[in-house]
């Protein structure tokens, strides 16, 4: 295993572990406020200090990790679950109106950055974490559809696919038996990258108030709350930011490490 992979695994495990641990234990209760303890810099009692309501930042980071991971994971799931079949379907038809229609649909969805989708949804239904999931998820669909189609098309010209067609197998069956297993590595690596992008997007959406709503703690909103406090107590702004960087860095390193391990020639999409 490469150093990249080990570091990526370690960082990811740290945050996922903290999120899981937060279900059973956090150093302090995240909903208990204490004005006397407000904006305390990191010390022995509060390892990462307290915020403007006197809440323990470490505890909030742990619970916030839960929100971030859940939102990003479900969003990637939506993107993969809908995008990959669409891409495979388009590739199975190779040309013709269906492929064209799927690709145009992709282009169209690509024209709506997740923030814009979130704005639209929020304008209509009001803000919530579910909005963030839907917005990021929708944006992930064309990413996976393009990736799957792009990687499946050259496979369809390979002789082993022709052999399967000679054996009388249907397009659906060939996609499932021959195409999908050969895309697995690529999808794992791209999934990791989209996961990290999802964490970033979730943070951005909650920062502008379009994501998880109080009292659910989230890293993005911690930063929004910290903004006016930055001059008084820099740690309230620095700590949640570092958490985001650590989690995203971990996932990216994990993705790169996995790619090197599985197949260095994989072509992932970078957006």
């Amino acid at each position: 295993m490469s150093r990249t992979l080990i570091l990526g695994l370690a960082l990811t495990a740290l945050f996922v572990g903290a999120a899981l641990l937060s279900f059973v234990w956090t150093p302090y209760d995240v909903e208990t406020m204490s004005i006397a303890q407000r904006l305390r810099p990191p010390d022995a009692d509060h390892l990462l200090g307290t915020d403007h309501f006197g809440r323990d930042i470490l505890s909030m980071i742990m619970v916030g990790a839960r929100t971030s991971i859940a939102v990003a994971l479900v969003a990637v799931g939506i993107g993969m679950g809908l995008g990959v079949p669409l891409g495979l379907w388009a590739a199975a038809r190779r040309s013709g109106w269906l492929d064209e229609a799927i690709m145009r649909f992709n282009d169209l969805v690509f024209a709506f950055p997740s923030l814009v989708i979130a704005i639209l949804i929020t304008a209509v239904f009001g803000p919530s974490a579910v909005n963030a999931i839907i917005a990021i998820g929708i944006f992930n669909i064309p990413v996976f559809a393009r990736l799957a189609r792009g990687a499946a098309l050259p496979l369809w010209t390979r002789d082993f696919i022709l052999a399967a067609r000679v054996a009388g197998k249907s397009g659906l069956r060939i996609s499932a038996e021959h195409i999908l297993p050969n895309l697995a590595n690529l999808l794992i690596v791209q999934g990791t990258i989209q996961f990290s992008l999802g964490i970033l997007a979730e943070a951005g959406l909650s920062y502008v108030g379009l994501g998880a709503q109080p009292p659910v703690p989230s890293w993005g909103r911690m930063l929004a709350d910290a903004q006016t406090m930055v001059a008084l107590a820099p740690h309230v702004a620095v700590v949640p930011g570092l958490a985001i960087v650590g989690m995203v860095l971990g996932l990216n390193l994990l993705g790169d490490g996995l790619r090197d391990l599985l197949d260095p020639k994989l072509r992932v999409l970078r957006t």
Partner: protein
Amino acid sequence: MLRYTLTRLASLAISLLVASAVIFLVVEVAPGDPAAYMLGLNAQPDTVAALRAELGLDVSRPERYLDWLGGMLTGDFGVSYTYRTPVAQMIADRLWVSLPLALYALTLSTCIAFPAGLLAASRRGKAADIGVTAATQLGVAVPNFWFAMLLVLLFAINLGWFSAGGFPGWDDPLAALKALTLPAIALALPQAAILTRVMRSSLLDTLGEDYIRTARAKGLSRGQVLWRHALRNALIPVLTIIGLQFSFLLAGAIIIEQVFFLPGLGRLIFQAISQRDLIVVESVVMLLVFAVITVNFAVDLAYAAADPRLRTRR
């Protein structure tokens, strides 16, 4: 090339039409009547009806859609429900902040990424490459709005070189540029990291091609091969990313505007959301989508200019 342009142009028009329909429909299904919302709970039904007529809400949906669409084509985006001023005017004012900011950031990110990507690719595996790669790894992990807060903390609060936010207007262009500098840097650096990575890997891919070996056999040095043969071929995927980045920068600008209290489209849209001024939301979103689709169209054309094979293909 003309045929290619025309086909792309047709597909551009269709995309815009479908996008406008999607936006209109989504906003239309919004629960609640804007007129009733604006007048409060105790409004008389006839007052609401009068306002609905004034806002043009009393006609059928398809008619309203066509009105909206036709209006946009002539530059008339309707009238804000809240401010009763033309939406076009509101957007135009704000665009003068958001658009320069996005372009400023795009320029910065391209100016950083090209040399960095070239350097890393030409020194593959050496210290410079490892340094650039590590920096990009960190760069893609930093949320731009947090980076913006750190910039404010350092350059505005601690050093006092820049103001922490606000925008003085374009009467004094230098002051305006100065006010946009920190936001542009915050937007540009994470994007530059992505672009650098794409540039580097695209160059390395291209350097592995057969025609690079042919060029070396002609007597070109490694450096000459990079400049004359690899760069232009490597630019094709880089162009795609630059096109995509423009949309990210516009969207990112909406968030960054919040950090720096800039009176741009972002502020406008968040105000509009909180006041349920749906026609403003609709128009700004349409404008953003229009920008993204048009930029991608431009990228397609740039593709064809860079790659002769595309001009004759469909």
